[in-house]
């Protein structure tokens, strides 16, 4: 989707934090929340990789659990369980349902 470029240094953090000003990411919702995926923060073809695992904008998902120690999130999407690292989850923009 080629989101707008935020931050002068071009780092992902800049892009993601700028998004976070007014958009919710998967990383920010509590466990058990149902969400709809809105978009992916364009992050080195991450959106493409996520699509390969069956995560598309418009899909509904539920946050099942969080691994400790900065570990991944486990989400349920289309009846499957997928673990996403926090860096990845931070690039998934969602709305709660």
């Amino acid at each position, binding site marked *: 989707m080629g989101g707008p470029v935020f931050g002068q240094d071009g780092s992902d953090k800049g892009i993601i934090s700028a998004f976070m000003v007014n958009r919710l990411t998967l990383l920010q919702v509590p466990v058990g929340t149902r969400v709809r995926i809105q978009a992916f923060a364009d992050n080195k073809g991450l959106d*493409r990789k996520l699509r390969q695992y*069956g995560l598309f904008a418009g899909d509904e998902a539920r946050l099942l659990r969080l691994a400790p*120690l900065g570990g991944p999130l486990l989400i349920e999407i289309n009846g499957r369980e997928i673990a996403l690292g926090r860096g990845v989850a931070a690039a998934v923009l969602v709305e709660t349902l």
Partner: protein
Amino acid sequence: MRFALVGQPNCGKSTLFNQVAGYKAETGNFHGTTVTFTESRVRVSGEIIRLVDLPGTYTLAGTNPAETEAQRYLASEHVDAILNVVDASHLAQGLELTLELLTIDRPLVLALNMMDEAQRTGQRIDGPALQAKLGIPVLPLIASRGQGVLGLFARALQEARRPVTPADPALLAGSEQARHKLAAELAAGVVTRSERRLTWRDRIDDLLLHPFWGYPAMAAILFVFFQAVYGIGSAIEGPLLAAFNTWSAALAARLGAQTLGGELVFGLLQGISGGLAIALPYLIPFLFGLGLLEDIGYLPRIAFLMDGLMHRLGLHGKAIVPFILGYGCNVPAVMSTRILEEKQDRFLAAALAVLVPCAARLAVVFGLVAFYLGPLWALAIYLFNILVIALMGRLLTGLLPEETPGLILEMPVYRVPTLKTVFGKAWFRVREFLVEAWPLLIGGSLVLSLLTYFEITPLVDRIVRPFTWLLGLPVETGLPLIFGVLRKELSLIMLRQALGGADFSDVLAPLQMLTYSVFVVFYLPCLSTLAVLRKELGTRPMLQIAGFTVLVALAAALLVRGLGVLFL
């Protein structure tokens, strides 16, 4: 006639392949284990078919090397029919690949695998309706139990002989997004969902992936695994080794220890007993247990729990696949680094994976340390090993800074393991040991006999002396360390012979056993691993990794020696 098996990761392709081809492919309840394709001949209703098992792929337009491989193959080689295996319990996702396959206009048959799993999750699939919509044959399959396999192949044979009817243009979606939508609509049209029955499989993750209890549970599972391997292994090693030692002593007395014949017979016995009494007793329960954990689906759970820690090593949890496979054998571990997208990640994962003590090194750790010092010491070596790998990961990422993408990993549902798969998998490796490693062990022992008889051994030992001296080991340990590069078990089996067949505890102090084992665990991967490193990464990275392991081994063994001198 050649058929290709195509499907998404973890859809049960390899299980199907093994059902018809005998045990050739590595299956696991874990995606990314099949990275090269295996071809096998099968006979279906009198016809010989060459069946190719392609790496699991989510899409034909893949980004990681495993996915590109499948794509390249289907595009280039002549395939008479494509068997598309789909996990019926996740039909919508699977159909995305099917829709992509429809675009290449080859004879195509769709197998809805894991029908039992779909039923368990309360889904009923209208096969005929799906067949009508897709315009290709759709057949039900439960590959793990062999149900529907024959019908599938018979149907594929029919299709292969028939001209292909072009796919319905309405099914040819232009973009991934459009395909996703279309696949979801198709699935929604043929799947009726009833109330999902919650079973122990849905509840068990509440404990096993619990943010706190998940870790004690993991520790307990691994501990039981470890204890079982030790318990079974040592119960066999003890009496068997004692018997061999008696025979070997009796034979030596008869033939005279100083004659060439005597030396050779002695070497032969050492080689045979080493494989039979020291390596196999631990290897078999270990491989069986690993296969069991893999088939149940617990391994990705370890990845989930450990990802946070792995991240601190600069790796993401996906790199846990090479790690865990590494405990079986480093060769598939290095091969599986292909599932990582970044070259940097692959180098890093491979460099660390070869530090993982494989089943061959397990023989050294168990046969020497666990047997003489107790299983807790062996466990300590394994924990120390993980610590060193963590430290090295940290160090290497510091040297090769590049951001790693985060983990994306599918968590498969737990499956009741099928003994056929688990046995088959264990046998696959045991057979490899019997036909490849064991003869080498016996050969190595014979060579050592010759070297001893012609008094060349001291010369070799002297060359390696700087290392053995530094580690506080007897001079005689030099040769076994060199031979260990051929096969890691040789480091133990030849050690016994080099020490004159004496009981280890008479010749080696406990600290020396520890230092020796630690060095063996880390230094140079075996020849086969070096070869596969070269194939996967290139000559320079292979040499870099080899040099790196020697440095790590020296540092780790010296640390153990230093700590031992201080505290033991």
